[in-house]
């Protein structure tokens, strides 16, 4: 199976603090790769580098597409999502709380809709071509809402949804930009076991049906071990282990990092 993302010798320094130290790993197409590690290991920093929120001190990140590879360093900010098609969610949910569920999903399709609305001109003239495109966008939103079972709440404010539903909504909102790579920052945080199970189902669906690669930061081991094809373990910014879920469970280094070393 071909590589989707290659991280090569990534280093991120904040002043004297080395948050990520010479990190290299690959993720493959149609696989779920988890990044785990104790608190402060640098997991979210990796995400922020990948999704353009930080500019790494040194190192390269490549996204492999059909026949060429795209350097993510070249894109900053919103272009990561717009051009490189890397989507992400956040550790603390970042929906648009005062906007409706449907509007949240339409904002995710902003760039296509902007072009369809002729940068607002066709939209102001209320042309049919724009209305058709808008209907397509609504249909796409409905498709995803059907999957997470929130269609009946499409017109309610996103901020009024229960916590677990907000998590799922944030994930499908990211999926609405049709990403090549989906980065999820602790999607199971604060979910109860039933909701975690639903989350697993959703992530497996995205992996198999949508052929989207998933990069996952997670503390909930039932999620990590249940769905990961590949696990990267970080501690103090360094990669201490890489392998399948089964191998990770047995790894001495990982156990030591989490539980400490026997005296």
């Amino acid at each position: 199976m071909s590589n989707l993302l290659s991280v090569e010798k990534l280093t991120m320094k904040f002043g004297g603090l080395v948050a990520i130290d010479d990190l290299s790993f690959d993720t493959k197409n149609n696989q779920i790769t988890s990044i785990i590690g104790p608190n402060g290991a640098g997991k979210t920093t990796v995400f922020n580098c990948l999704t353009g929120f930080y500019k790494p001190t040194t190192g390269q990140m490549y996204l492999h597409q059909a026949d060429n590879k795209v350097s993510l360093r070249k894109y900053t900010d919103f272009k990561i999502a717009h051009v490189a098609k890397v989507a992400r969610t956040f550790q603390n949910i970042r929906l648009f709380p005062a906007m409706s569920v449907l509007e949240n999903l339409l904002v995710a399709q902003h760039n296509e809709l902007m072009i369809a609305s002729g940068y607002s001109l066709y939209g102001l003239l209320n042309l049919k071509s724009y209305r058709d495109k808008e209907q397509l966008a609504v249909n796409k939103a409905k498709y995803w809402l059907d999957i997470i079972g929130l269609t009946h709440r499409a017109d309610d404010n996103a901020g009024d949804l229960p916590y677990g539903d907000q998590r799922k909504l944030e994930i499908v909102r990211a999926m609405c930009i049709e990403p090549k790579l989906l980065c999820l920052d602790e999607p199971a945080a604060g979910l109860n076991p039933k909701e975690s199970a639903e989350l697993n189902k959703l992530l497996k669906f995205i992996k198999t049906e949508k052929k989207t690669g998933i990069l996952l930061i997670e503390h909930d081991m039932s999620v990590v071990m249940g769905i990961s094809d590949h696990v990267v373990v970080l501690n103090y910014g360094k990669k201490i282990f890489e392998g399948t879920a089964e191998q990770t469970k047995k790894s001495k280094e990982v156990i030591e990092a989490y539980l400490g070393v026997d005296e």
Partner: protein
Amino acid sequence: MQKQDIIKSFKDSLFTGLIALALFGPIVGLRTASKGEGLFITPQWGVVFLLVGLCILGRFLININSARRTEFKIFSTLSSKFSSITEDKAKHFAITGILFAVVFPFLPFTDRYFMDVAIMILTYIMLGWGLNIVVGLAGLLDLGYVAFYAVGAYSYALIATTFGWSFWICLPLAGLFAAFFGILLGFPVLRLRGDYLAIVTLGFGEIIRIILINWYEVTNGPDGITGIPRPSFFGLPFKRSPDEGEMSFHTFFGLEYSTMHRIIFLYYLILVLALITNYFTLKIRKLPVGRAWEALREDEIACKSLGVNPTNTKLTAFAIGAMFGGFAGSFFATRQAFISPESFTFIESAIIVAIVVLGGMGSQTGVVLASIFLIGITEIFRDLEQYRMIAFGGAMVLIMVFKPKGILANRKPTILMHGDKK
């Protein structure tokens, strides 16, 4: 109501009275008056006690009201009346309002004074709607909005007096200039949010005013620009005695000459301009760019993660908001026929922001209600001269006490999946 509640409210209101006494004592109580030679202090303790008494009473009533909402019919019905005005009902209100505005000039009690006040209120409504795009939708607190109003007014005045072009050519040009200044302001403040943005925009408003005062060669400095052409009715001027071979409005329609013709025309002009602003805002709110503005207000980082370009989105909000400010400015210039930097002070910006915030951020109908309320009340008390600002302050306090989120704070989604069933 329990006894200790009353005692507690009473104690609290006495404390309020103490603060009021400390404030009003020196400010109102000691008045300097010049009698013959030199200044003398005339105490006015009667007024002070009256004001302090009012504060104590007001605070007491508010306390009792919050302790037991049902008891005090006046306050609770008043506030529930306002909260029952949802955007749905606001639609009926809007249609009635527009109809009323259309027939207003021909109502029997309408005289010159009423028309002038109505024109002023409509100007503020238009400015409020323009600023609503920037503050209400995009969530960018702009305290220097009057700068665009000034740019529009001066562009119109300068173009019209220099080249003698007609109002209908100058109006879009003034709007374009104002939009350009909107982008000019937008660039340096792209990374700023909240309080910091407010301070920079406030500074921008002052910069424009000070340039207008000091750039004497172009703007004529503090003396202002006089003799700005009046608008014409599709080429027909409103003149008592038109030039040779020229028709004027009253001769063309065979009417008796009246200054009211021009006033009525100006009234409809600003009404149409304001309604265009409103229509445009309502439309664009439902387009992708409008949704992006609101999304940006909600969470900028989430916007970036979804590929929304925050720079373009913010700049369009600034530019479009400024454009409508510019239109309103050129209307102001043509109505007054004289403009000077005096008209574009910070207090104007503050009033417009107050209208938007008190109306309920992002609510179009709220802006109308707040304009009528704030400008209307200030006008009613015009006889009190400088004390009318007390009425203005009082109106703001009333809204903030009873509707802290603004008169109309309900947001309706821009698009519905299940149709309008609620």
